[in-house]
């Protein structure tokens, strides 16, 4: 029976192709001059360069975190190239017609057509290829509503005041080892600003693609939702199939001003390495949102890729009545390792948070939920509810739960529950007796297990992204 | 004794009771019947002061005092008792300790001396015997692990010990077999002394064969739509709530 389950789980990685695109790539290595060159390539103002350098010097003094339940060889940060961009991007194409057709084909192959007329209705895309943003669609339509959606490199030029004010305000430069590294060497990413009272007229999304060998991708995303505004944002990511590990260390900062709402969804499908654990992306990401009064930040993630995942999208619930949510499905197979979860920091009164985490472990993988719920002394009436469920498929994998709870307020309520279960032979037998094959049966059971999370994905993506990005197990999304 | 004037109440901004009028005089037994969702249980919660049950209009007087102005425990001390339809379990708090605390809090309010442990034990044993609960139920946690019928009998036992002015019995008959029903009814009847009043909330006429009501009220859509004597209950038993209109006829089918 378990062999059938294994088969059902072993799908090939469709996004594993490499695009023949002539690129300009820095030689491997990191020192101050590399940071100066990145800054110069991006034509950055001096304040940005100084910010990067401060981060770099902080990073030099920091240690790689070792507390996560993951095991991988030490990364040599001098063996990574910190910048790579298609040569064709050098002259900054002004419209889609000027973009290298090979680049566009790459995205088409991934199911992300960048021609606006072919796109999913109501979704604007920023496509980031290695270290640069290729194109951002629907910009004029968004501009009409006053929404800014552009590569962060462009935002630094065009909206320096906004960037200066908010970059590093949620994830400080020297927050942790990987965030500091990112702050020093980030190359591109998306910037979003939703003005007061505006409901963003379409879904925004960024699609990240690592293509070149030995390059790290260090993108930085900053989303600011001004008072009373609303935005829903989705990111997707893939990389070619290679034998070497590659590093992806991103930083995402969300600022939700009073009464605003940010919904951030991730479909993470970086190359996970082969069945024996060879190759794959190290996905070491810092994501954090700051919620002011009555604001709401909702993180939804579907994590199926990467060799090693180290990621804790968090909410700082600073304003009274602010709300934080975290919905996660993490699937690990083969030799994948995931240590992921969230932090809910309750500072304001009557703040609320919900954590629903579904971990599915198969093969020889290890899947850990790690979370922190903290009730500060002023968080009167704050509440948290956490549910962590693990599903084990096979007897060679591991499922782990490490929830930290701290309360300093007598009127705050924290509830945490965790369970484990397996796809039982009985369940499989029942499905098969009713005429389903094993693959369909496993898919169905897993999908049922993840339902609470899938329903949080934006409609446009739940259907389309499911198909395009193999949102989870083959055939498990109906 | 208990006067309800034009009572309007809502739960989570949904209006459940709108314009209920009722007067209960000393020694009377009033039965409130009605279809599901008529607001029967809500009435008990509103009168006893449960959080989230908001009175939006009207007044309630108990012996001339403004009941709605009192805290939950003050209402109980003033003589209002609610026998719950689904009594909560409180593991770790012994039934005995709990009832002693309750009885003495009420006595204190009445200016009486608290009962000594021995006096209370004697009364509690007698009450347990009356409702046919084994004595070890006094030692167990409040309602902890009690069956549905045992919980109902435990409610009646508390009523006997507390000796309230007005007791509201919220579907105290639901889920009981005939023997248990007899025990509950006997418990209530033993407390009828011409002074104490009862509001018996029930879905079925059955209980009223055992506890004879002076008045029967039909509650529908949050107000009393029909009142009468005991014969009204029989009428309902025979032909259901069809007289209320098609909506209820179907609901009862």
């Amino acid at each position, binding site marked *: 029976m378990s062999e059938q389950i294994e088969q059902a789980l072993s799908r090939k990685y469709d996004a594993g192709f490499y695009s023949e695109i002539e690129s300009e790539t820095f030689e491997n290595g990191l020192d101050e001059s590399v940071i100066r060159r990145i800054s110069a390539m991006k034509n950055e103002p001096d304040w940005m360069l100084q910010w990067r350098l401060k981060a770099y010097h902080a990073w030099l003094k920091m240690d790689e975190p070792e507390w996560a339940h993951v095991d991988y060889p030490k990364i040599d940060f001098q063996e990574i190239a910190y910048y790579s961009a298609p040569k064709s991007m050098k002259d900054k194409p002004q419209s889609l017609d000027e973009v290298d057709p090979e680049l566009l084909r790459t995205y088409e192959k991934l199911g992300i057509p960048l021609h606006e007329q072919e796109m999913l209705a109501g979704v604007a895309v920023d496509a980031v290829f290695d270290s640069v943003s290729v194109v951002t669609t629907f910009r004029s339509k968004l501009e009409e509503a006053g929404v800014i959606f552009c590569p962060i490199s462009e935002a630094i030029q065009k909206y320096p005041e906004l960037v200066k004010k908010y970059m590093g305000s949620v994830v400080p430069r020297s927050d942790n080892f990987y965030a500091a590294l990112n702050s020093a060497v980030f190359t591109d990413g998306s910037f979003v600003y939703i003005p007061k009272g505006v409901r963003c007229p379409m879904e925004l999304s960024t699609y990240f693609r690592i293509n070149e060998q030995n390059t790290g991708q260090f993108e930085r995303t900053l989303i600011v939702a001004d008072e009373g505004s609303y935005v829903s944002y989705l990111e997707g990511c893939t990389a070619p199939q290679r034998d070497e590990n590659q590093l992806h260390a991103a930083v995402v900062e969300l600022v939700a001003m009073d009464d605003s709402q940010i919904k951030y969804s991730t479909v993470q499908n970086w190359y996970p390495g082969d069945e024996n654990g060879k190759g794959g992306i190290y996905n070491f990401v810092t994501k954090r949102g700051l919620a002011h009064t009555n604001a709401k930040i909702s993180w939804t993630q579907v994590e199926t890729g990467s060799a090693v995942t180290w990621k804790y999208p968090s909410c700082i619930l600073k304003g009274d009545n602010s709300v934080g949510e975290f919905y996660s499905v993490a699937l690990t197979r083969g030799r994948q390792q995931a240590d992921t979860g969230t932090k809910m920091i309750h500072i304001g009164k009557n703040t609320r948070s919900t954590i629903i985490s579904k971990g599915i472990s198969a093969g020889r993988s290890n899947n850990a939920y790690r979370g922190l719920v903290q009730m500060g002394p002023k968080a009167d009436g704050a509440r948290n509810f956490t549910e962590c469920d693990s599903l084990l498929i096979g007897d060679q994998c591991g499922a782990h739960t490490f929830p930290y709870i701290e309360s300093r307020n007598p009127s705050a309520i924290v509830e945490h529950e*965790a369970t484990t279960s397996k796809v039982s032979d009985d369940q499989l037998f029942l499905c098969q007796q009713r005429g389903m094959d094993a693959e369909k049966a496993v898919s169905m059971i897993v999908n049922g297990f993840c339902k609470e999370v899938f329903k949080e994905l934006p409609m446009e993506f739940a259907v389309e992204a499911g198909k395009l990005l193999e949102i989870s197990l083959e055939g498990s999304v109906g | 004794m208990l006067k309800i004037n034009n009572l309007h109440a809502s739960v989570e901004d949904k209006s459940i009771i709108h314009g209920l009028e009722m007067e209960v005089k000393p020694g009377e037994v009033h039965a409130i019947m009605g279809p599901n969702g008529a607001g029967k249980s809500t009435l008990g919660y509103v009168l006893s002061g449960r959080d989230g049950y908001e009175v939006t209009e009207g007044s309630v007087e108990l012996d001339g005092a403004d009941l709605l102005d009192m805290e939950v425990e003050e209402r109980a001390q003033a003589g209002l008792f609610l026998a719950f339809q689904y009594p909560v379990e409180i593991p770790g708090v012994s039934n005995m300790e*709990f009832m002693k605390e309750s009885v003495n809090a009420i006595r204190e309010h009445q200016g009486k001396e608290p009962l000594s442990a021995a006096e209370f034990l004697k009364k509690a044993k007698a009450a347990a015997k009356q409702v046919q609960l084994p004595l070890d139920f006094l030692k167990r946690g409040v309602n902890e692990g009690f069956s549905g019928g045992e919980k109902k009998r435990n409610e009646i036992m508390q009523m006997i010990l507390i000796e309230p002015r007005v007791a509201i019995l919220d579907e105290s008959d639901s889920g009981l077999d005939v023997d248990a029903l007899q025990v509950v009814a006997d418990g209530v009847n033993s407390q009828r002394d011409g002074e104490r009043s009862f509001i018996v909330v029930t879905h079925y006429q059955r209980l009223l064969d055992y506890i004879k009501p002076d008045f029967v009220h039909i509650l529908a859509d949050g107000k009393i739509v029909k009142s009468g004597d005991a014969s009204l209950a029989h009428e309902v038993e025979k032909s259901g709530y069809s007289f209320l209109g098609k909506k209820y006829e179907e609901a009862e089918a």
Partner: protein
Amino acid sequence: MSQWLNEVIESASATSDFLAPFRKQALSSLEQAGWPGRRNEAWRFTPLTSLEKREVKHVQQAASAQPPSIEGLSAFELVFVDGKLATDTSQLATPEGVTIASFDQLDDTQKQAASEVFGQIKPARHIFGLVNDIASTQGIFIDVADGVQMDQVIRVANLVTQDVDAHTRILVRVGKGASAKIFEHAEGTVASMSTAFSEYAIAEKGHLEHYRFAMMTGQAKQIGGTHFQLGDESTLNSTVVGYGSELSRLDVDIIHAGEHADAKMNAVYLLAEGELFDLHSNIEHTVPNGTTEENARGIVGDRARAVFNGRIHIHRDAQNTLAELNNRNLLLSRRGIINTKPELEIYADDVKCAHGATVAEIDEEALFYLLTRGVNRSKALVMLNFGFIQELVNKMPDAAIRQWLLPKLNDRFAQMEVK
């Protein structure tokens, strides 16, 4: 290394008894591990700064003290006073099939048996367990032979009456099909530092009823551990009671070494003033078919801090395990802190594991029920809060100990409420 630890090592180096080879090994492990700082996960929420610079104090004059008497308790009484076994008050008698002896009294066979327990069950990761390994010259070995059913409780009291460093050890073997009741009872309020570790090897079909009351308060620092190894079809029923003090830490390990063993553990802690109590429990299911149920409940008032870490570790082959852990806390004060972390580490798929943790106010529905019965709000809150603890205390198998404990807890709780 801290000054205190250096001194402990220095003064322990002179000992040479039958346990010397084990002590030597512990010393080298200890030197490798070093002093645990805040970045050490096991000590993350429990600062050791007050211990770091302590000067080691030796007993000048042995005091005499009696453990609190417990009405109706039929027990063999063993008493450590300020870290020394009080031979005059201790009953080192040997009923049929039972050995109760201090380390320096053991014959060769007994030494062999004791060596098979010393440091063999307690995992080496406990730094203060290693400290106890090298420094616990005072210890008791208890052996209950195969098939012997002991009705009487063996109480080992650990009393501190003066500023002293005390290191005591208990080694227990419960034979095949045997049954024993052992009660570790620590009391004391004066400034002092004690480590108290116990190891229990429960053989096939053996049964142990166990109590560990860590009731030292005030300035008495206590760091201890109780470590159980369960053989095939053995059963364990353990109750832990924790009072906080300036520094109070207890590590419990339950190791399922044999199949079909059943472990139950209930823990309650009541903390007031600036007290700290840190309970780390670790359940190791290394073989299939074991069951574990753990419930820990605590109430924290004033400026107190409760730390709970409950780990369940299901090893690769431990199929068919049933393990549950539940930790519930009440925080009564705005200056108090609760840190709880239930952990699951699972490497086998055919298991049923669950944990839950809550930090909350009392049940609103239960409060309403009490209020409708005329009970005043403040009294209702006390009843519900205490009921929360009492529910677990009521599950203690020994009625005499239970009846002694309840009013103690009640008084402690009442004092907390007043403040």
